[in-house]
């Protein structure tokens, strides 16, 4: 479903080029759950951003199902994220001025893929029933991350990308959130790629990859 070949990305820092990714190859099947670890600055987040089309690669290809992501325009990449990718961030990135209910259906409405039954199921599974009228600032970190996961899955995406989704949560909450995510990913059948620092959490997924010196080790 996701196929990455020879992907490279270079940044400039203080006038010097920094080669973050140096020919990454990666394959991910539908329904497969993969953890990506690596030391700080190894390029994990960059790889995730390139897959999501948040940034453009310098070389190589990314193919999601039948779409060559690296050949898409900015608008094309936006459409891809909207319709086929779910994104979960460490900082939750909820919209502070929207209630939990509105945040949950936010992406699905933009994508025109709102499904009330599925949203209701998400609310139940994520335990958000009593929180729907609250605003993000009135929630704990774990609750906010559950809303973010719900928002990402509300469109029933082909691929769920999570960038350190448990980085701001305590250990118990992190495990709860991951367990929920795994269940929901299994329910939707989408692919799941999670960047994490935690080897313990990485071990809970189907496959564990490590990024080192810009390549998959």
């Amino acid at each position, binding site marked *: 479903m996701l196929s990455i070949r020879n992907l490279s990305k270079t940044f400039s820092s203080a006038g010097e080029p920094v080669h973050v990714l140096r020919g990454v190859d990666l394959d991910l099947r539908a329904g497969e759950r993969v953890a990506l670890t690596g030391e700080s600055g190894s390029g994990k987040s960059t790889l995730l951003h390139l897959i999501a089309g948040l940034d453009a690669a310098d070389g190589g290809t990314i193919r999601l199902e039948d779409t060559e992501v690296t050949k898409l325009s900015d608008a094309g990449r936006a459409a891809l994220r*909207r319709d086929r990718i779910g994104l979960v961030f460490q900082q939750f990135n909820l919209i502070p001025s929207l209630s939990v209910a509105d945040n949950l259906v936010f992406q699905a409405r933009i994508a025109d893929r709102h499904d009330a039954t599925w949203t209701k199921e998400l609310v139940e599974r994520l335990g958000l029933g009593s929180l729907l009228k609250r605003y993000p600032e009135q929630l704990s970190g774990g609750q906010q991350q559950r809303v973010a996961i719900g928002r990402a899955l509300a469109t029933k995406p082909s691929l769920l990308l999570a960038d350190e989704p448990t980085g701001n949560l305590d250990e118990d909450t992190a495990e709860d959130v991951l367990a929920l995510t795994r269940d929901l990913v299994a329910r939707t059948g989408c692919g799941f790629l999670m960047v994490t620092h935690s080897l313990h959490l990485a071990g809970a997924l189907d496959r564990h990859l490590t990024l080192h010196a810009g390549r998959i080790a």
Partner: protein
Amino acid sequence: MRRALWILAVLLSHWRRHKMQFATLLVGLIAATALWSGVQAINQQARTAYDRVAATFGGSRTAMLVAPHAATFPQNLFIKLRRAGWPVSPALEGRVQINGRSVRLLGIEPVTLPVDVGNAPRLGAADLSSFIAPPGQTLVARETLSDLQETEGAAPPISSGAKLPPLHVLPQLVPNVLVVDIGVAQRLLNKPDQVSRLLIGRPKSKPAPLASIVGDQLQLIEPTAETELERLTDSFHLNLTAFGLLSFFVGLFIVNSAVGLAFEQRLPMLRTLRACGASARLVNTVLVVELVALALVAGLIGLVCGYFIAAVLLPDVAASLRGLYGAQIPGQLSLRPEWWLAGIGISVAGALVAATTSLIKAVRMPVLATAQPRAWQQRQRRWLALQSCAACVVFAVALLLLRYGESLIAGFGVLAALMLGAALILPAFLELLLLAGQRSARRPLALWFWADSRQQLSGLSLALMALLLALAVNVGVSTMVETFSRTFIGWLNGRLAADVYISASDNAQGVAIRNWLKQRSDVQAILPGGRAEVQVQGQPVELLGLPDHALYRERWPLLEAAPRAWSRLVPGNAAFISEQLSRRLNVRIGDVVEVPAPSGSWEFDIVGIYADYGNPKGQLTVNVAALIRQFPQTPQTRIGLIVANENIPGLIAALQKQFALDDRSVADQATVKAESIRIFNRTFAVTSALNAFTLGVAGIALFTSLLTLANSRLPQLAPLWAIGITRPRLAAIELTKTLSVALFTVLLAVPLGLLVAWCLIAIVNVKAFGWRLPFHVFPAQLIGLVTVALLASLLAALLPVVRLARMQPASLVKVFANER
């Protein structure tokens, strides 16, 4: 479409959570639109009135033929021209006195009156026969009917004893003019077979050349796009427009500040929207749509407010225009659809201009924020340097305009460049001051105080610029008005030389009054006066006749005079000229001026120049006896008296009893002076109101900036609170910081305001009105304005500071939580 609406709903949800910010944005747009539209409504109302004047049966918008050297010419020239195919129509103009009031009498010939003489009030076929057939009609505006204290259908007598045809109201007619058939006018004005001008319609075929029919007896006057009244009042309306524009820009400062802050606060939301797949184009389009929608709503509210502002100010503006220029403006507001459309347009355009920076940022915004290190400090320094360079360029433009500019627009250009330059250089100036403070600070809290003030400066600079401009304009205009007021009162004291002023209803009554006065022992001197109107170099000029009396030599103020100036007036071959006319005609002492008189041309040497504040017409002062010799038709109805103070009330009472004179026809010097000062004060009431509005809007700008800044100040203040500085102390420090930068700004505004006053007095007034005033500084007034500005700053700073002092610790703790 649904996608766009959903994004719009998300963007609008920001305002639901930030109500004060939303109110700020709306207040800015409403204030900007209201003040601008209010001023435009007044200007439009006045221009409509001028158009009515210009279109009164062939005003200055109609081509016409006049005699080059005389006020009237024989009617047979009209017949010759008609026979030669010229589509001309005769008109005769003069003044008559009714119930002691002087009114313009216009005689027309309705049958030949061209249909295309501007927007002349039409006479229908039914009305035409009533107008021509005896006894005829006197067409009159409703306002004039009321001023004359007459009713429709009445036939009041004029000063000669002859009666006007019955009065008939024609609503669209301009005030202060009576329109009759030309035959009636010739009889009433005692000018048989004479016409003042021939109005020219559109010829069907090319007529014979003018000179071949009438030789050089007549000259062609082309229609002018701008009427005399428009030319005279240009400066007044330019002044109003300048105020409106200033208020508009100050309002936009508020909008800019609110939109800028909203954008900064919504950056994460915009990034999330983009991360969730909303395309950059769609998000940016919806941002613009949101702004335009808000501008439309605020624009509509602003227009309604502008209407009320205009309605409140209009009576004072109308009084000013009547007092200064003799222009009659209806006191009731009527607006055209263009005004509403222009108001909405200016609101939308203003909002887009104010939001330009934020919109450009939104267009350029990358989805990933982390890839963009901010380097805020360096950017800020670069921006300050650029702004300072721009200020220097603008100052150079001001100098060039000052050196080479000749027009009134150039005068306003100097003012605008001066203020723009000062506003641009203000942040750099404040940055230098705060840097100096930071370098001299030793204690850590003091160091933080100065450093944090510098960091806050970028967020406050626009509001401070608004405060600087508003206060500078207030200082400038107040100084100018106060200077004018003192000069005017001093001048009035000299100019109103007589102790009692009488205006007889006609010449016969004038003679009777003079004979009666000669027998009274309490009258020390009788000073007869007279006035006539002529055209000099195409400009209306008033000839003022004064008697030869020692009182005038002692008290009548002359700015410049030739030796023995007063004695040289007596024979009738010398005159004084008003300052504004001397500038318009470029006439100095010793020059010769020629005016058309009934018996031919009248020449005299200019032997004196005098101030004549508030008179829209140029004026020449001559000996009254010489004036009556040259203009035998001059009404001899004005009489001044010298009377001992204690005898004035008794004399006035006796005059009123003997000749049935009302208060308008006889008044003592104190009453006339009080009335003049009342008119003067009313003239500047509009300026004072606009001054107050502008300062008020600047206060709101400062308040909204501080309020919005306060919301983003927590991350800077929370660490200080965490290390043990109490909330009340933090609040006090915040207040001191705001007041310090406001004080620096206010202190800079004072010299700038004085420079503005100098520009108004030495450049704008001279070009606009033709008179120059002495420059004075009024320290008490300056202290008052500085106090008001600081109080406004204190009020603006108070609410955010009180909120900080009362803030719950939980809100400060949140800063340390790893949440956004």
